[in-house]
């Protein structure tokens, strides 16, 4: 049974200072999917994620999320529609404590941090529990990355945009994250769009993948193709 489409972009053009980076990009993601986006440095993967969440405005084209055109909504409204965003380079709030960072993530739901949610996040990333009142800016790189993921999970998003979540994280936790995400996806049906360079993580998580180059989708890969090392190298070669 094919699930409903949760997100489509049509002819999406977006970029910085009047220069488009995304050049009419089109993707389609279904409810409950985990889709990877791969591509070389600087092709626009992060730009895509930012324009989906609303941090880079769309110059033209449309973004339809759960049947609603959202390309004109500001970022916070999209977040309230259930999009969660883990940026590349973590972007934690450096002078807030770990707990406060997570409280910001939980704020969409109103009220404080729900105890169940806290248990879940701390369960997935024990270091966050241990360092609950350390200021985030003084955490190690990998710890910050874990915080950035935990901060989004606390709000039970409907769709998660993960931009290179494995960056700077130790190998066994990368495996844990992949496992946790897949498990979360099974349990709650959350949709995940994953930008990643770590092939192991992609294979462990993604059901299929888009290949991006120069602001466009140049190929769409099935799960089987992801396992094909030669095929992958062809798409990612410099």
């Amino acid at each position, binding site marked *: 049974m094919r699930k409903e489409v949760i997100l489509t972009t049509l002819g999406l053009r977006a970029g910085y200072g009047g220069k488009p980076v995304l050049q009419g990009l089109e993707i389609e993601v279904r409810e409950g999917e985990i889709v990877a986006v791969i591509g070389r440095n600087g092709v626009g993967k992060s730009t895509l994620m930012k324009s989906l969440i609303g941090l880079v405005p769309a110059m033209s084209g449309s973004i339809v999320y759960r049947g609603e055109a959202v390309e004109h909504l*500001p970022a916070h409204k999209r977040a309230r529609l259930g999009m969660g965003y883990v940026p590349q380079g973590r*972007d934690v*709030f450096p002078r807030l404590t770990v707990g*406060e960072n997570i409280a*910001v993530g939980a704020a*969409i739901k109103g009220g404080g941090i729900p105890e169940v949610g806290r248990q879940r996040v701390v369960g997935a990333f024990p270091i966050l529990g241990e360092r609950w009142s350390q*200021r985030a800016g*003084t955490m190690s790189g990998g710890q910050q990355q874990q915080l950035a993921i935990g901060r989004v999970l606390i709000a039970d998003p409907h769709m998660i945009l993960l931009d290179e979540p494995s960056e700077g994280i130790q190998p066994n936790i990368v495996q844990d994250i992949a496992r946790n995400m897949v498990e979360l996806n099974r349990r709650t049906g959350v949709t995940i769009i994953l930008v990643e360079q770590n092939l192991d993580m992609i294979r462990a998580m993604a059901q299929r993948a888009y290949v991006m180059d120069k602001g466009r989708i140049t190929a769409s890969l099935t799960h089987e193709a992801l396992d094909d090392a030669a095929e992958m190298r062809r798409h990612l070669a410099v």
Partner: protein
Amino acid sequence: MDIATLAFSALYQFGDAFAFLVLSACGLAVIFGMMGVINLAHGEFIMCGAYVTAATVHAGLPLPLGILCGTLASAFVGVLVELLVIRHLYERPLDTIVATWGLSLIATQGTLILVGSTMAGVGTPFGSFQVGAYSYSIYRIVLFAAALGVLGALYALFNWTRFGVLARATIQVPHMAAALGVDTRLIYSLTFACGAGLAGLAGGLYAPTMTLVPTMGATFIMEAFVTVVIGGADVFLGTAPAGGILAIVKSGMTSWQGQLFGQIGLLIAVIIVVRVLPKGISGFVLRERT
């Protein structure tokens, strides 16, 4: 003269200086500390609060209500200013110096044109009391209490409420806060309004004790900036101790060598504090805490 009288007078002078430093600084601390905006129109928000307070009292309202009106009026002007000007400058905080300088010119001269060069005062309430050979103004004690109250309220607001955390998050990484669902524009407006309102409150509280002229804000500015900057970003961990230290220095130096030394002592204290704690007091406290 007995020790108790002396001790009380020292305490009173300290409290007086402390109240002035803290009340002048709080609004600025919120706007600068929280938002990174250097608000050179701070004095004019104070003036606005004082003028509205005086005007409403002349119109027949009791003083506390007048002060409330002054506070709200300043906060309202703050919202407007934020919407029209400051909002567009968060990416480049240094430019806010120019913009707010411009606003302050508009405000002082505009007031001069519209309201005239002076405004009649409202008179200080409550009268005086006697300790030993000296008589003191009761209202000054009220000011001290108000300073403590404002500090407490701000601490509660920014540390215990969701608004505080969201505001701080928004100021630190605005795009990320937005991506997490925080309505950053609203937060900015509210924070700025809060700072402007506090300035208005300071103006309202001091209105009965001062000459009301369009340039009256200038007398608060130096103390306010000095307190805020060496206090640093955190209102409670910064402004309060900074106010305390500077009040001791200022009241001590003033009673010892007169007002000039009080002021110069204040400035020297600032230089020493910054030299010893290059990140200000709250920078120091926060570093130690982690």
